[in-house]
């Protein structure tokens, strides 16, 4: 087995977001989070429930359930879900923006809209995938809070914030989380070949650095075989980081 590529390290890092989640809907939005969810399910998180991206839940040998959009919204409200979404902007509290850049009244760039981000973040665990770790994404303040971060959740207080959790942020350079005393974004590991200085320089706010900073774990041979032979034999993953 030849060594893992950067994107394969990212897929395994995404998979780790769903470790110990049990029997819930693992929603990966976009190719790399989706491959991560699939990898988690066929290795250390076999109870995860996966959607085909349309309206079917898919098990090992085909459909095991039906999940049209109306039911996805129902499952989100019921909390039986952990989603990994994209983020056009993220701040140190984990506030996410996918709506627009600039003023909301007349944006310089209209993006997707808030989609399900407000409901996801208030209802169940949410993680983020950022294919290009840069100061354009990791900003001091996001322009339109779509998914809510820890400062917003704290301001709400209990009981409204009791289901809020931003689990993890996976980028092309590192893994970050919010397990710091003030719930600010913290560097958790850097991918092999990436320096801490590089991550700090590409982050537009002071990211917290723990005393011990490990490297993101390398995929096992078994995981690499699954990614290369079963989950993404066409190699679509290789086009995801440099777009």
């Amino acid at each position, binding site marked *: 087995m030849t060594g893992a590529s950067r994107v394969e390290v990212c897929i395994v890092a995404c998979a780790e977001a769903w470790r110990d989640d049990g029997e819930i809907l693992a929603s990966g939005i976009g190719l790399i989070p989706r491959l991560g969810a699939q990898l988690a399910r066929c290795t250390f998180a076999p109870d995860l429930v996966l959607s085909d991206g*349309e309206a079917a839940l898919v098990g090992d040998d085909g459909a095991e359930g039906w999940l049209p959009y109306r039911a996805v*919204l129902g499952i989100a*409200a019921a909390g039986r879900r952990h989603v990994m979404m994209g983020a056009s902007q993220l701040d140190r509290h984990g506030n996410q923006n996918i709506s627009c850049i600039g003023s*909301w009244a*007349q944006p310089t760039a209209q993006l997707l809209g808030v989609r399900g981000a407000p409901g996801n973040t*208030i209802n169940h665990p949410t993680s983020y995938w950022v294919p290009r770790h840069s100061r354009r994404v990791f900003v001091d303040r996001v322009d339109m809070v779509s998914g809510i971060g820890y400062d917003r959740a704290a301001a709400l207080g209990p009981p409204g914030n009791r289901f809020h959790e931003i689990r993890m942020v996976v980028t092309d350079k590192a893994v970050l989380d919010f397990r710091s005393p003030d719930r600010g974004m913290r560097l958790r590991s850097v991918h092999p070949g990436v320096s801490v200085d590089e991550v700090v320089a590409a982050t537009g706010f002071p990211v917290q650095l723990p005393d011990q900073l490990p490297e993101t774990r390398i995929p096992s041979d078994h995981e690499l075989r699954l990614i290369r032979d079963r989950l993404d034999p066409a190699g679509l993953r290789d086009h995801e980081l440099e777009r």
Partner: protein
Amino acid sequence: MADKVMSIAEVVGELRSGMTIGIGGWGSRRKPMALVRAIARSALTDLTIVSYGGPDIGLLVAAGRVRRVVTGFVSLDSIPLEPHFRRARQLGTVELTELDEGMLHWGLLAAARRLPYLPIRAGLGSDVLRVNPELRTVRSPYSDGEELVAMPALTLDVAFVHLNRADRQGNGQYLGPDPYFDDLFCLAAARSFISCERLVDPAELRSGGPAQSLLVSRMMVNGVLETPHGAHFTSCVPDYDRDEAFQREYAESAASPQAWSRFRARYLDVDEAHYQRAVS
């Protein structure tokens, strides 16, 4: 039972400027595009469009029919950002009520149940409440005392949905994997119109799929239209997939006023029959 079959012109003739119109489907999937094209050709103005947005919103905005869009996203799916909607937002030529997808669902549900609002957790703490200052929260009257968003009913004047099959009385059937929110759009509206790929007799409707594929009942429907290939260029599986090549051509028409004029002359300033010949 009443025969509710109508023509596209008859349906559009029932619309007035300033109306609130709900459109079924999702993104670039099973949109009633034949009706959307007819509205785009009309002289109607100042419409409010409520939709899980796709090219229905982009086309109507580009054609100058829309004052306000009520949505959680506008996307062409395989092309993530809807270029005509983007352009209008960046020029400041369209108003927006931006909601979480679940809030939009809840607003339609409240309207369908004739309730003034429904409580929902989605939206709390987010800038959806900042950009929609008319939204209010409500505190649970029970011992939990939880504060929730009071999502107001999104009551529609008219709803349009596109289904695979229907009968002349207005029973409608979807044959794809997802009903989206089409039945809810119909119940949230004072008047609902369904277009379909093919009008069939009730016996064929029954044999075409299981009873639960009969998504829309005639008691929710005021008019039925047969518009073959009428969701084009959005998908209408299993009858046809999205026309990706045409969707790219549509997206490229947002590049400049000249590109839009060419697209409009070729595909919109013609009737539905000419459109279908031009794209076949």
